[in-house]
């Protein structure tokens, strides 16, 4: 739950049962984590690596950065196209997405970002992998991690040099705006995780590579990141690093496999995107060609 109270932005929270009462605790939604930390940096990497900047159509960009939309009806499923997609783009096999006429599921579960606080002790303990546990001594309650901010948006008319800048004199009502909201204090820790099912090393590489890309771009999440809020320091624990055959997986080797895979398939990826999401004019021309017009 998030929103405003008066003119104050309230931080996103969820309800947690704690000592026979219900408390609202700040949370980072799985939806935000999935987009900001995986799909967005991963999609941008593919676009840059395949030299597609300034060459995409809207459906291609929407597919890579937002998961696509179902725009055509169909009663058949093109398994060949899905297989091509999963082979060429391991990231989309993780995240799933919608081709123009079929929805393809993914294999990635993103856990929500849980604030490490006393109220969340039970939920975090249940999610922690074997061998990890929270310290026995009491952790601080959630409200201690919440602070507030206040900023002012300027008004060009109120500048000292406005008469030099503006073509004509304005005497309108001032547009100056004070706005405020809630924020999480620096040093707070959020715990979250990813669960991957039925995947290969190259898909683990795609996930880790996306996380590294997000970290390299500043590792921001949440509102007001343009002015410095939500900058994270990321720690990644890689557990049970074995593939289906019991071979040990090394995170940096998985990332290298993924980078090499994208590098080796640049042209095929671009071709697949063109075939799957053709320009509207191209579809018409193909149809005309098929009809012998």
């Amino acid at each position, binding site marked *: 739950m998030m929103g405003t109270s008066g003119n104050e932005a309230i931080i996103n929270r*969820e309800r947690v*049962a704690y000592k026979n009462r219900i408390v609202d605790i700040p949370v980072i939604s*799985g*939806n935000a984590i999935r987009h900001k930390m995986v799909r967005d940096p991963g999609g941008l990497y593919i676009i840059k690596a395949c030299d597609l900047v*300034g060459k995409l159509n*809207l459906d291609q960009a929407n597919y890579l950065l*937002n998961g696509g939309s179902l725009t055509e009806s169909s009663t058949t499923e093109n398994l060949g196209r*899905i297989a091509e997609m999963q082979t060429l783009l391991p990231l989309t096999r993780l995240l799933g997405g919608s081709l123009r006429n079929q929805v393809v599921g993914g294999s990635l579960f993103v856990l*929500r970002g849980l604030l490490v606080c006393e109220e969340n002790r039970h*939920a975090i303990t249940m999610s922690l992998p074997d061998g990890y546990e929270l310290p026995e001594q009491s952790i601080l309650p959630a409200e201690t991690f919440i602070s507030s901010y206040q900023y002012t948006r300027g008004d060009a008319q109120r500048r000292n040099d406005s008469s030099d800048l503006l073509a004509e004199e304005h005497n309108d009502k001032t547009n100056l705006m004070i706005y405020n909201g809630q924020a999480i204090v620096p040093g707070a820790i959020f715990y979250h995780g990813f669960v991957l099912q039925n995947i290969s090393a190259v898909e683990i590489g795609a996930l880790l590579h996306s996380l590294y890309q997000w970290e390299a771009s500043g590792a921001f999440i949440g509102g007001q990141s343009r002015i410095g809020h939500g900058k994270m320091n990321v720690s990644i624990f890689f557990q049970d690093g074995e593939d289906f055959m019991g071979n040990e997986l090394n995170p940096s080797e998985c990332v290298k496999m993924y980078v090499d895979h994208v590098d080796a398939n640049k042209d095929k990826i671009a071709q697949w995107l063109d075939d799957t999401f053709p320009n509207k004019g191209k579809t018409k021309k193909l149809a005309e060609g098929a009809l012998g017009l």
Partner: protein
Amino acid sequence: MIKNWKVTAWLSSPLAGDPPQIDAILGWELSRRLGYKHHRKLTRDIPLSQIENPPIPLAKRTIGEHEIYCCSSPIIPDPKAEWVERISKRIDTDEIALLLAPEHRKSLLVASGPYKMRYVPERIRLIDRVCWFVRGDKKEINKLLKSVYALGKHRNIGYGQIGEWSYEEVENDYSITAMQRGKPVLMKIIPFGSALQNMTGYKRTFGAPFMPYWHPENYMEIASPC
């Protein structure tokens, strides 16, 4: 060994939507492991005669002319809290404008159509467990359920996450009916018919009494526990 069990999924995050039938979960998981072609891509227009149901480790009972699995509908406690969450989606137009080829940089309708922005309300319930009564092989059931990480809707973004599966042996079979004040109470969705004589605790409605529960070919008059 076939016995009566109470299976409990202990949740570590709130549940979105409704919990599923346990035979559907087992069927989904076993189809995945057996590599059934229709595991992911079974659609409404594929006739069920073309697909094979996976052999899930639950006992079956014949009711009327149908064979149904011995497993109750999901049972959940009163939620400790209930609220509406919003799931949002929008095209980041400021991000994609320069990525598009110049001929595709045009005005985009985002109020309707394929690029419509979403801010969809979703019912969320804070519950700590979901229970089912089943008659089946615990060892085999556990083999399948231990890979099930979440229940309900929006599992991919952290809802309905399961912390632990637990099993408790029960003396009686409550998978289809249970006795209450000397009268049988319905515990599972079954086809509406003569089997319901003297039974209470159900409503007559329309739906599917066996998996896949969403497939229109399975739709018929049913009795649903309430």
